């Protein structure tokens, strides 16, 4: 593989020298060739930090041309596996078991051998394209470096320019030559992820370790990146270990799935088998927790009663750039209106207009039929996306939930305590958490606290900005249950912002689709999400992967044809 990185081959593409995928399965006929086709073998891996166990007896093999998905919720130890495969775990980690990467034992490799395996044995793609690239070095430098690191006679970075352009073109970066001189912040998230993939495949590794490669991306971009990973597998025959929490992504791309929970393997099966007949209870729970489009029967709660929120012809500009362009939207009493769109579509800005945090350039914001004064504010609840940073770290759970009562009412101490306890029950939190602080809670618990705080005054309007986007699927399902129960109990109108169409379909009565600050379509969920008229809504629906391999293949067909 080393000649790939050397100068002589720089004009040629790796696909011309590596076995095609049709060869790779054929090689599995003899057992010797089978062993050779294995690019990663992990046997009984155990990783621990102090007294905690991150990975507990995991075995996995990845062969050439194979995409194996490692699925689990946060804390399941799945990222640890990828880092362990490259010997990148911190020194404090205890590692047992054997890891064989490209035929070499990771545990007994010298630092220099390890260095050479990184990039050449396996390339790695990380979750956060925003931070995974060095902000002060050019794209060209960073791509060239990944070739140069494995060149037996390293030359100046400029020397690798041609090869870099080739690699960037390979991963679908437009204007590749121009990009070499650009810095990461000049590229969009999707382009940065492509650059990271180019870096990962630069030294022609037999394996790609992809740790949540699409989690930070919009659905349409996610689809492109998944297509690229599949395409690299098809043409280069590279094996892929895909680490993800998203079962839709798994159904879309993986050949084989390993379900992890608390560091232990719960189930391993072919993708088709796993989704068709999951054996382990946990797998079934996971699958059930994924919200699916079309699962919800919508009753018409849109009674056209008095509107609790009315946005009329809203225009918002930042430095002359229009982020919201003439959007009108109404939330009536008791209904939940979904606001969907990709990043930069203006959905959060619109919510901030409703909250009075952003003043629109033109247009009117009516809350409860009037202006947003302090009286109206009392009837308004808010939940934000990141529960970790929206809770005051110095306050206990009880203080956090009671705070709106202290600010807006003269409720006595005993009454406040009673109210807080009542709400703890409503959001299904044990009373024992009352004296805890935000950082002592899990993500789901924090978001329940945020919900309790948002409804403590009995609001008539709730604005929820991506309230479950940072949560695992099973936690998300539970938090959405709580939200729905609170909605039934309090009967508030709700503006529900999300990028996840299935979540919106589950929760909302009506939905509005935003794109680039403009409203492209709005109406009842049943209409917009099941019979979309606007091509953008159709594209969004098609791009969000469903946890069903067969259906996913069907959906893919027209897109790839």
């Amino acid at each position, binding site marked *: 593989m080393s000649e790939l990185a050397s100068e002589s081959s720089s004009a040629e593409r790796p696909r011309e020298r590596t076995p095609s995928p049709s060869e790779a399965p054929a090689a599995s006929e003899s057992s010797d060739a089978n062993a050779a086709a294995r690019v990663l073998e992990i046997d009984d891996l155990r990783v621990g930090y102090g007294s905690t166990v991150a990975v507990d007896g995991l075995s996995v093999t990845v062969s050439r041309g194979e995409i194996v998905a490692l699925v689990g919720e946060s804390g399941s130890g799945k990222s640890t596996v990828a880092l362990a495969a*490259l010997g*990148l775990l911190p020194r404090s980690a205890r590692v047992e078991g054997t890891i064989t990467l490209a035929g070499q034992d990771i545990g007994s490799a010298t630092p220099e051998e390890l*260095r*050479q*395996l*990184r*990039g*050449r044995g396996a*390339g*790695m793609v*990380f979750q*956060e394209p925003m*931070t*995974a*690239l*060095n*902000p*002060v*070095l*050019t794209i060209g430098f960073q791509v060239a*470096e*990944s070739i140069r*690191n*494995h060149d037996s006679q390293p030359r100046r970075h400029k020397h690798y320019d041609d090869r870099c352009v080739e690699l960037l073109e390979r991963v679908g970066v437009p204007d590749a030559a121009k990009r070499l001189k*650009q*810095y990461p*912040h*000049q*590229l*969009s998230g999707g382009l940065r992820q492509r650059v*990271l993939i180019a*870096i*990962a495949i*630069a*030294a022609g590794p037999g394996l790609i370790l992809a740790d949540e490669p699409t989690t930070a991306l919009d659905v349409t971009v996610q689809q492109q990146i998944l297509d690229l990973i599949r395409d690299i597998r098809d043409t280069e025959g590279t094996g892929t270990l895909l680490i993800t929490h998203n079962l839709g992504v798994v159904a879309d791309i993986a050949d084989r799935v390993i379900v992890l929970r608390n560091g232990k393997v719960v189930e391993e099966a072919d993708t088709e088998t796993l989704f068709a007949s999951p054996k382990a209870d946990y797998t079934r729970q996971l699958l059930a927790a994924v919200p699916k489009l079309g699962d919800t029967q919508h009753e018409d709660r849109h009674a056209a009663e008095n509107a609790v929120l009315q946005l009329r012809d809203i225009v918002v500009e930042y430095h002359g*750039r229009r982020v919201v362009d003439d959007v009108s939207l109404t939330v009536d009493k008791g209904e939940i209106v979904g606001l969907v769109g990709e*990043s*930069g579509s203006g959905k959060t800005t619109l919510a901030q207009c409703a909250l009075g945090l952003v003043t629109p350039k033109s247009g009117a914001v009516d809350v409860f039929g009037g202006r947003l004064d302090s009286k109206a504010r009392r009837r308004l609840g808010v939940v934000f996306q990141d529960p970790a940073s929206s809770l005051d770290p110095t306050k206990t759970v009880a203080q956090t939930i009671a705070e709106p009562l202290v600010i807006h009412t003269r409720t006595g101490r005993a009454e406040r305590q009673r109210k807080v306890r009542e709400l703890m029950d409503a959001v299904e939190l044990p009373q024992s958490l009352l004296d805890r602080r935000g950082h002592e809670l899990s993500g789901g618990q924090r978001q329940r606290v945020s919900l309790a705080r948002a409804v403590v005054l009995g609001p008539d309007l709730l604005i929820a900005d991506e309230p479950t986007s940072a949560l695992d699927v099973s936690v998300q399902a539970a938090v959405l249950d709580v939200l729905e129960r609170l909605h039934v109990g309090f009967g508030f109108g709700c503006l529900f912002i999300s990028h996840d169409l299935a979540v919106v379909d589950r929760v909302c009565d009506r939905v509005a689709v935003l794109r680039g600050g403009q409203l492209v379509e709005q109406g009842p969920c049943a209409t917009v999400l099941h019979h979309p008229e606007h091509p953008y809504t159709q594209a969004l629906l098609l791009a969000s992967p469903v946890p069903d391999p067969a259906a996913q293949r069907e959906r893919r067909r027209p897109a790839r044809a």
Partner: protein
Amino acid sequence: MTRFLARRLLLALLVVFLVTVVTFVILHLLPGGPARGVLGVKATAEQIDAFNKSQGFDQSIPVQYWDYLIRLLHGDLGASYTLNTDVSTLLAERLPKTLVLTATSTILGIIVALPLGVWQATRRGRAFDVVSTGLAFVLYATPVFFLSLLLIILFAQVWPIFPAQAAQGDTLADLLSQPGSLVLPVIAGGAATAVAYSRYMRSSTVDNLAEDYVRTARAKGTPERTILWRHVWPNSLTSVVSLIGYSIPVVFGGSLVVESMFNYPGVGLLFWTAARNADFPVLLGVVLVIAVTTVLGSLLADVLQLLIDPRVRVPGAKS
């Protein structure tokens, strides 16, 4: 870039103006005034009145400041009461010497500090880090005058390697003719800078080593040394460079002590004597010079940061 510079320059002018107002008012509110100091203890009340009148001290402070400002705008800093020389002549003679001292000690301090900080960061918690951190704190906690005395005793008296006093003379050339005499003042003036910047650099490097991009660099097989110097170093530097401008007043403050300890004929020593004699024009002149240098220094640091950080230099992606 030009708009940014124009705005910063305008702001700098405003800051300098405000500094002159504040110093002027504070000086003139001080009881006593310069007359007694200039005319001596035997001066009669009439003589003092006459002096005050000739200097305009009988007028209200706003009027005095206005006169001062007009003269200042004409480039006239006034004349020293005690040294019988124009302040501008004094400054022209002394300022280069102080600049040589402060610039050398700052630059040498930083040259020592930056790699030291990086080495400490990569050996975090190990013997080298613990010992050098301990020494750094002792040095940081040592007052400049004490450190100067210590240096003089050790290296001028116990082991007479360097002279205890800076070379005297009117011109810069006189001073530079004995470079050995600069060694102790430079060390005394630069020690605090070196310690402070090694701490900044250490924490900045530690933070950067934990960044995602370092993990990416490792995962593609980049050697540790390259990660440290090509990836982490420029990132840590961007956050430290902006601090350099803000340390200029500290360095000037330090040179005040250093110059008096080593009898170094710079602005600091001038300020020292002027303060004891209530020599207002000299004091005002020195403060003005320090204000201008400080403001220019922080402007320079901002521009420097602009030049090394592409996130500031190159406009980002349009979303």
